[in-house]
């Protein structure tokens, strides 16, 4: 809980990027998310914490409509991005996901070369005009994800041949290469060693200048280090949401208090 990079006045100027109101999620009959209200601020890192199975990933997947790919999953409520309802009929989830990128809990590199993995998003969205520009985007993304040094000599080799932690950084590079406005990261550091974790945290802090970042994490220290806002989930409920500093030093709810002090989880 040291190394707070945030100061209070930083937060004042931020606007709401995403507003969620009264969101409920059902998997068939399982009520996984119950009436959750959250604001994700622009240029801010928001962390979702809570015990396993409380619905952090589920809620995260609502924000870029990844839950659409699960047939039994049903989302109700209102989620707005820049004021527009993202579940509106006129919204194309494909375009939404290009703006709201995602890094998954388990690394999932494509069975392609490292280069093609990173170039995937820029190519399908036509973000680059020529090969030189693409090379530049790929290198920049790999550098930001701090995997350039390990990958630069084997760009044409399959991404699946990397180690688990390298694969996760590759997936992060792949997500930032698409230049999203919001980046959702589901436990991005769970497979990483402390050095790589520190680099990713640095990256997250950098990303804050251009995107807003939502990160799910099981590490209280990580949440405290990288985020300015924290949401605590428990059994599908959003128990407490507020400034990270406040949540970790002076939580209002007893359950939050118990969780961050390690009394249950």
């Amino acid at each position, binding site marked *: 809980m040291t190394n707070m990079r945030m100061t209070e006045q930083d937060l004042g100027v931020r606007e709401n990027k995403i507003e969620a109101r009264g969101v409920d999620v059902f998997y068939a009959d399982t009520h996984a998310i119950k009436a959750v209200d959250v604001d994700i601020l622009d240029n801010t890192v928001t962390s979702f914490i809570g015990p396993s199975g409380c619905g952090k990933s589920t809620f995260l997947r609502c924000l*870029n409509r*990844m839950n659409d*790919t699960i*047939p039994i999953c049903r989302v109700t409520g209102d989620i707005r991005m820049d004021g527009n309802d993202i579940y509106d009929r006129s919204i194309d989830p*494909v*375009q*939404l*996901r*290009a*703006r709201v*990128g*995602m890094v*998954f809990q*388990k690394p*999932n*590199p*494509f*069975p*392609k070369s490292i280069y093609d993995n990173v170039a*995937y*998003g820029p190519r*399908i*969205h036509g973000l680059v005009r020529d090969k030189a520009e693409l090379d530049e985007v790929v290198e920049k993304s790999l550098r930001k994800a701090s995997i350039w040094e390990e990958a630069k000599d084997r760009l044409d080799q*399959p991404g*699946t041949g990397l180690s688990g932690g390298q694969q996760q950084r590759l*997936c992060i590079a*792949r*997500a930032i290469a*698409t230049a999203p406005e919001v980046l959702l990261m589901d436990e991005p550091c769970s497979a990483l060693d402390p050095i790589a974790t520190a680099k990713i945290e640095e990256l997250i802090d950098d990303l804050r200048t251009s995107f807003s970042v939502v990160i799910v994490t099981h590490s209280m220290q990580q949440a405290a280090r990288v985020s300015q806002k924290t949401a605590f989930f428990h059994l599908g409920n959003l128990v407490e949401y507020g400034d990270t500093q406040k949540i970790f030093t002076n939580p209002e709810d007893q359950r939050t208090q118990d969780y961050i002090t390690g009394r249950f989880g």
Partner: protein
Amino acid sequence: MPGLIILAILAIAAVFFSLSRARALNVSGGQLSNLHSRPFYHGLYSLLWVAIIGLGVFLTVLFLGSNLINMLLLGEAREAFPDGSTIEYQLLMNDARAIASGGIPSRVDTLREALAGKYATLENIYAMSLLILPAAAALLTGAVTLRQVDVNWRARNRAERVIRFILLGAAVIAVLTTIGIVLSLIFETLNFFNNIGWRVDKYLFGTRWSPLSGVHDGSMDADKVGAIPLFAGTFLITIIAMLVAVPVGLFAAIYLSDYASPKVRAWAKPMLEILAGVPTVVYGFFAAITVAPFIRRTGESLGLSVASESALAAGVVMGIMIIPFISSLSDDVINAVPQSLRDGSYGLGATKAETIRQVVLPAALPGIVSAVLLGISRAVGETMIVVMAAGQGANLTLNPLEAVTTVTVQIVMLITGDTEASTAAGPAFTLGFTLFCITLVLNVIALRVVRKYRELYD
């Protein structure tokens, strides 16, 4: 009778199984941990050996016995009636056998009666030994294995070794059968090449196929055994079939795995699999009676001349036949691509089509390639459809509207025709061998492709 003997041997084996098990329990003195092997393994060891020895002796007597009788009788006959021809001896033996078993011989004389008497006694001895020898061997083996039961007897290890040899035996049978088939193909092929004076080039590159029209004195006219038209026909029909089967099958698989709702999938996939179970004869007359006339009529209304049996008809129907193989196998491999890869692609803002084309299909490629090659193997080897719908004349053409013939059709015609089998077998076996080589090469290529991509993506 032989069935009963086999049952008896198995019964003896079962009895010794329980005897040995009981004895093992007995020597353990009620303390199972004294035994090296559990009683079950002592029983199993007895059972395996009794069954192996009993059945082995039975089969040996069965095969050797009748040959031995024949040899003995033939020796007798030669002594009494030297320098007859093979056919005369054959007749003699048949008559003797007929007399002995109360049939109708061609002639009765003293020699034949003497032989018949001899035959009857030998036959009796044979029947007796067929009964007694295997049973005796089984009982003896049983007794020996029963005596071996002891606290320190390593029955488990030994029983497992026996089982390993039984498995090895099965594998050896499978391999030997393959080798036998290949060798007989090679042998007949060499024979045929010898027959055409080693003009292998004429076979491989000749363009006239009419092998039986040029036979004289057992040798063939090398100018009439050119296999090119047949392979061209096979090639043409295979291409047409794959042009139908690969896109339709693959697209169906993609639809089923990634677009169809679970409900649609639940009935559509079994439907496709039923299609795979339709006998090819049915496809054949479907091609000949429905599709070929339809193509002909359509062609004529467009001012094209279409033969009533055409490569197109056979190829299209064959393609339909192959669709379920390709779609079913591809559907399985496409489904095996992990959902997390699709999620990764969707998460980057890719559409369904982009995801399938750029992530799912490349990941499933090895499986799809092997599905396609399997389909090609089927097309190349398919017979019934082409026999009925493609024609019989060995035309050298690449026009799909004309009648062509294929390798398999010609093999059928050679073997089922009224030419003597020994003459027709040569070209038929040679065609079969060539076809075998082609499919083998295809399979090897398929394996290579698959392995290459496996390395890349695993």
